[in-house]
């Protein structure tokens, strides 16, 4: 029986339910002191000067680092996951909540108190805070998708053919700033030993953190060790190596003691990125039979000042490939504000962009008086219409069918406001989901000891996604030994390197390397058996490895005995695998169908999601239990996007006014209904040897559109922005 796919309990479950799993801030070092950040209270200008007299005189204060005395840091070019600042290297203020000082004291209480006593004088400049006011000054990103492709793209002549359609729509959708709000605050514990730096930090990418810190401090990568065995959620916010990690290391170097620096929840609203606000203009033109003639998707996303880096929300990439349409154009533009640098947040691009696209598709279906699923099927893309390549695999039709059947879509009455339960309006909405299948090089080491126990190691991360567990399952199948005898280790930059855990790529990147490393170990075991195991001169093919034994025609020998005979404590192999030509030849994507039921009090306008069904083509599933959790979690994230989440910025001061989890609304238990998730079986071994497509982002894509479409179906009111609030539908 293969272990891959089985719903086994998480191998780290026991540690997590007993509180024994150790997160970055929880490692203990002798002599550790505490760093607390001080942040700016204006959005634009510069620092005129500090008055530190009161703070410095407070008990326990060791030092206060400001731009006046901060050690110089380098900016490593071309290192992924690096941001240029703010790192106290100059006195410019580019956004409200920018780091301007670090107070270091013996205890957390002392450091917090002294940080509150730091006085700052500013030269105030006018801040750009309104994206809408500056839309006319939008500019194309310089490094769209890290320079992998241009920000604009088109096929045919969408503007020329637009007017030939029977139904034409020209619509604008808006999505707000959202914050990841991982439950674990960003935390770093930094310790120097001479010129060697060890950093325990909350990161989705230990390799990137290692390269970044080495570059910033001008030391060799091998002199930086990053440790992160557990991560309390990331959702993209812990992908970059943000300044607080660097400032903790700088502080530790300054006071010559280990420094722990943990952000407050409020500081997390300006310290580690956010999903930028988007304004999206969509033009759709269709013939009377529901065939799309022309599509245009122009996306604008809010940005920081360019000195802080660049991030562009790729809202229209899904639009290019999702539907067959001969004439199409997409553009991406940025609007620079006095705001922190935005970043990836769960399903970057797709979450915002598919909200707009799939809302517009629903509007078009309604205008055509056509069933929304039928309208999608009318424009189903059998091949990627933009890149003119076949899909590596696509089971979207099955997602539509199985999702619709589970939801009972055929019982939907098409007319808005036609379904009700007493005073409650009921709405059923639908949207498509899609997310690219990504893969990067990853290296894995496999070790077997004399007892026959196996350790599999890779410098990857488990951000709650189940990496520890599913990689153990992959190794179990590849080696033919039970999961109980396998230990998977990760989260340490001294292990073989693996990519950042983002873009739903961990399984597709690390999984094939685990398979390949285990296969190489088996060959090595056979080598040992043939050379010294008593099978000298026999054929390799006659030997099998199973249940921890080398099995030949005549007898069987425990692998551990071979290891023992070798005289070494263990045998090991290290293998790196990487993507091949498949990306050039195929269009690789995961797909899904999202179905929402909302119930709305027709007098009060209170919106509740009462039922949700998601059907997904996510490729091969490695663990049915952890996969289901990710799907439910993604849909929950989407429900938050649809109805709750929004970071509000004061237009005068550029300050986040709801920088806490009481006023930045996120779904709580009572907000989440029964969620049914369906996996449409589809092993996609074209995309990678394991056949997985990635499952982290896919389930949140389209959720907001499905809910917005359900709200329209319930009320007849079309809301073209999220979150959808009571006041939006009480018209």
């Amino acid at each position, binding site marked *: 029986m293969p272990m891959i796919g089985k719903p086994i309990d998480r191998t780290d*479950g026991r540690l997590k339910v007993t509180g024994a799993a150790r997160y970055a801030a929880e490692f203990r070092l002798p002599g550790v002191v505490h760093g607390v950040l001080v942040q700016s209270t204006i959005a634009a200008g510069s620092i005129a000067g500090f008055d530190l007299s009161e703070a410095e005189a407070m008990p326990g204060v060791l030092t206060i680092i400001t731009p006046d005395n901060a050690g110089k840091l380098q900016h490593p070019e071309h290192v992924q996951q690096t941001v240029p600042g703010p790192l106290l290297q100059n006195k410019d203020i580019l956004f409200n909540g920018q780091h301007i000082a670090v107070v270091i004291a013996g205890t957390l209480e*002392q450091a917090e108190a002294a940080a509150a006593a730091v006085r700052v004088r500013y030269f105030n400049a006018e801040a750009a805070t309104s994206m809408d006011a500056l839309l006319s000054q939008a500019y194309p990103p310089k490094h769209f998708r890290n320079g992998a492709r241009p920000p604009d793209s088109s096929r045919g002549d969408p503007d020329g053919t637009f007017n030939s359609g029977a139904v034409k729509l020209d619509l604008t959708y808006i999505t707000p700033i959202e914050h990841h709000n991982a439950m674990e605050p960003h935390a770093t514990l930094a310790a120097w030993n001479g010129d060697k730096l060890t950093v325990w930090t909350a990161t989705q990418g230990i390799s990137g953190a290692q390269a970044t810190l080495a570059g910033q401090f001008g030391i060799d990568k091998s002199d930086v060790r990053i440790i992160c065995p557990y991560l309390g959620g990331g959702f993209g916010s812990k992908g970059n190596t943000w300044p607080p990690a660097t400032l903790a290391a700088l502080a530790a170097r300054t006071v010559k003691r280990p420094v722990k620096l943990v952000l407050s929840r409020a500081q997390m609203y300006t310290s580690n990125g956010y999903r930028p606000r988007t304004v999206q203009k969509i033009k759709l033109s269709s013939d009377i039979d529901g065939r799309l003639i022309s599509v245009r998707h122009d996306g604008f996303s809010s940005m920081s000042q360019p000195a802080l880096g660049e991030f562009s929300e790729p809202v229209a990439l899904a639009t290019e490939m999702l539907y067959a349409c001969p004439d199409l154009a997409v553009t991406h533009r940025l609007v620079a504000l006095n705001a922190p640098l935005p970043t990836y947040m769960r399903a970057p691009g797709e979450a915002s962009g598919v909200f707009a696209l799939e809302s517009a598709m629903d509007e078009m279906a309604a205008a055509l008086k056509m069933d929304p699923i039928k309208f999608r099927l009318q424009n189903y893309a059998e091949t990627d219409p933009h890149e003119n390549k076949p899909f590596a695999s696509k089971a979207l039709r099955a997602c539509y069918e199985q999702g619709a059947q589970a939801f009972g879509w055929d019982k939907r009455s098409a007319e808005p406001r036609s379904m009700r339960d007493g005073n409650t309006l009921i709405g059923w909405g639908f949207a498509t989901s899609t997310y690219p299948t990504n893969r990067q090089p990853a290296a894995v080491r496999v070790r077997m000891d004399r007892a026959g126990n196996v350790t599999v190691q890779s410098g990857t991360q488990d951000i709650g*996604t189940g990496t520890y567990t599913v990689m153990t399952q992959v190794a179990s199948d590849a080696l033919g030994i039970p999961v109980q005898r396998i230990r998977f280790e990760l989260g340490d930059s001294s292990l073989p390197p693996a990519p950042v855990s983002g873009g739903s790529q961990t399984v597709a990147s690390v999984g094939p390397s685990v398979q390949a490393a285990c296969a190489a170990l088996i060959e090595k075991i056979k080598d040992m058996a043939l050379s010294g195991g008593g099978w000298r001169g026999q054929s390799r093919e006659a030997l099998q490895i199973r249940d921890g034994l080398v099995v030949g025609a005549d007898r069987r020998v425990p692998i551990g005995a071979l290891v023992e005979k070798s005289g070494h404590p263990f045998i090991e192999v290290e293998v790196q695998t990487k993507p091949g030509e498949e990306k050039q030849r195929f269009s690789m994507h995961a797909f899904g169908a999202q179905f929402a039921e909302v119930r709305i009090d027709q007098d009060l306008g209170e919106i509740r999601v009462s039922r949700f069904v998601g059907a997904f083509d996510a490729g091969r599933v490695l663990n049915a239990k952890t996969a289901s959790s990710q799907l439910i*979690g993604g849909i929950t994230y989407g429900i938050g996007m649809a109805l709750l989440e929004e970071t509000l910025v004061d237009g005068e001061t550029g300050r986040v006014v709801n920088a806490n989890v009481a006023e930045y609304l996120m779904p709580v238990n009572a907000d989440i209904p029964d969620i049914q998730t369906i996996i449409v079986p589809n092993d996609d071994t074209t995309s990678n040897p394991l056949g997985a497509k990635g499952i982290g982002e896919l389930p949140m894509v389209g959720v907001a559109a499905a809910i917005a479409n359900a709200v329209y179906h319930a009320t007849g009111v079309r809301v073209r922005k999220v979150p959808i609030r009571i006041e939006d539908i009480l018209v």
Partner: protein
Amino acid sequence: MADGSVTRRGVMVGAAGGVVFSTPRARADENPPATDAIAVKLRVNGEALHLEIDPRTSLLDALRETAGLTGTKKGCDRGACGACTVHLDDRRIVSCLTLAARCEGKHIRTIEGLSSADRLHPMQAAFVEHDGFQCGYCTPGQIMSAVALVKEGHAGSDGEIREWMSGNICRCGAYPNIVAAIRQAASAEG
């Protein structure tokens, strides 16, 4: 804290100004300077803990930073996320809004005190079985809330569990699995 006794916020405001601050009914002669350590005796998971701490220290920070009991998590430090939930004399409380110095003589139970030796508490086992978490950071707080919720008699239905678990945010979105775990553990308890 409506009786005018020392609150964390009050002490912190005062400390930031460099003066010892206490609300009117707290007697100044009993309060050492705010930044001098005080001795606090806590009973945590049945064991006596003698801590030398800054009087401004929250119960959460005393557990995590001083006692080394890091199973209790800091998520927001403002009583809004529930990650720091512990039991104080058998009631669930948010330890971030509780001053450690106010817990003298009280019984505190943390996630570390829930299981005995090798045996998980039924609620912990149910969370593992139903995958009631992903990243695991909110999990100790969820479990401490869940154990208290069952004792409170708030596990009568899924709807009731959802409502009474809504003080514990799970950003990974494990809510349906958390409800399933609590339902199972509650029914096993009868």
